[in-house]
């Protein structure tokens, strides 16, 4: 069984460690905050200028002046702070943020990522993604393994305009957890009920399979 988006978020949440500052992108990455262990201390950063983000506000308590990078109304937790956008990217470039989780349209076997533009079709802009991937030491990508036509999105080379080069460390898809190593995508875990064969078929880039590949533990 391929994972749901929630399951992908749950699996990625296991990568969030005690005392991490974490930046979450829009989409599946946003869901990760719901599944982080409660016995560890983590602070979420949003690049528009807040550290210490909390859950969505209760109805009627929304504040137009307190939003995240997805423009959603949010709350702050004790210890939170606000700052301007230049300062925010300063803490990103100087690698104060320990983990960046973002979505992608394509990832290549050398860790390139494309997620901001489909020429002639969709041009929304890169937002903060180029800054984040260029500076973050630890980048996990949450994405679908194949597109709607069934074509692999884990490629030898990205076909879309790049967001960053050689930067992705780990990819979590509905089928697998993969690490980017110099030789390509190293298969670490497979989704429950998904075979190594299934993953091979869905991966265009070089897939490295060493020994027995364990099933993911989601909960």
């Amino acid at each position: 069984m391929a994972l749901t988006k929630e399951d992908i978020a749950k699996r990625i949440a296991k990568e969030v460690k005690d005392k991490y500052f974490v930046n979450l992108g829009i989409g599946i990455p946003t869901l990760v905050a719901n599944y982080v262990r409660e016995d560890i201390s983590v602070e979420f950063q949003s690049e528009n200028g807040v550290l210490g983000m909390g859950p969505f506000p209760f109805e009627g308590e929304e504040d137009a002046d307190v939003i995240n990078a997805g423009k959603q109304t949010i709350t702050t937790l004790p210890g939170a702070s606000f700052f301007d956008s230049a300062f925010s990217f300063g803490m990103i470039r100087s690698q104060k943020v320990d983990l960046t989780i973002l979505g992608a349209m394509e990832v290549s076997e050398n860790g390139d990522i494309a997620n901001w533009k489909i020429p002639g079709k969709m041009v929304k802009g890169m937002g903060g993604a180029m800054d984040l991937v260029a500076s973050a030491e630890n980048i996990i990508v949450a994405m679908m393994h194949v597109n709607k036509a069934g074509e692999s999105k884990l490629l030898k080379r990205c076909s879309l305009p790049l967001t960053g080069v050689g930067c992705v460390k780990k990819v979590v898809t509905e089928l697998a957890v993969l690490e980017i190593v110099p030789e390509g995508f190293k298969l670490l875990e497979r989704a429950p009920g998904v075979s190594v064969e299934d993953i091979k078929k869905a991966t265009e880039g070089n897939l490295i399979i060493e020994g027995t590949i364990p099933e993911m533990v989601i909960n």
Partner: protein
Amino acid sequence: MINKKVASVSDALKDIQNGQTIMLGGFGLCGIPENSIAELVKLEVTDLTCISNNAGVDDFGLGLLLQKRQIKKMISSYVGENAEFERQMLSGELEVELTPQGTLAEKCRAAQAGIPAFFTPAGYGTEVAEGKEAREFNGKMHIMEEAFKADFSIVKAWKGDEAGNLIFKGTARNFNACMAGAAKITIAEVEELVPAGVLDPNQIHIPGIMVQRIFQGEKFEKRIEQRTVRQKN
């Protein structure tokens, strides 16, 4: 005290000319100078180059200037959620320069700080780097980005005083604090304008020297783009 107060938004924006470059603060619809944008629509100035992280939505923020075709060029990092923008961009009516968000913020900050250019790793190896000088520092590739040059910077703050000192609220600080003082003339619209001496100097985010004109906005709609809430159990 050097008094920066002007009576109204029309006094503050009276000398903005066609073809000028204007920075506008805000992220999404959060912290945008909405009174000044309404005035720009009224002034019917055209051929503007606007530097703003986003381009508003169809019927609010910079979307209002786009509707009236007053913008010739946008310099932004993210322009989704705006159908008219997309139409003008794809038809070639609107020139668009997409810039990584951190680079955009730093190009403002550099202008504010009197630094002509800087190196950043953001965009290296992508089409953003085309035509830009690339250099290696500490084993990593960076590209050179230049400070913005703008005629006006229009920012929005929560509180301000007649000396031009500004205090922001929440994430509405965003690009407003980076753009204040980053153009030849900075105009600040504030929700509450008080006499000098009322605000605690320890709490000022932007000192008044960065602001040439300040006024209290008539009304602030403060529209929410993505209203997300949870239910009380």
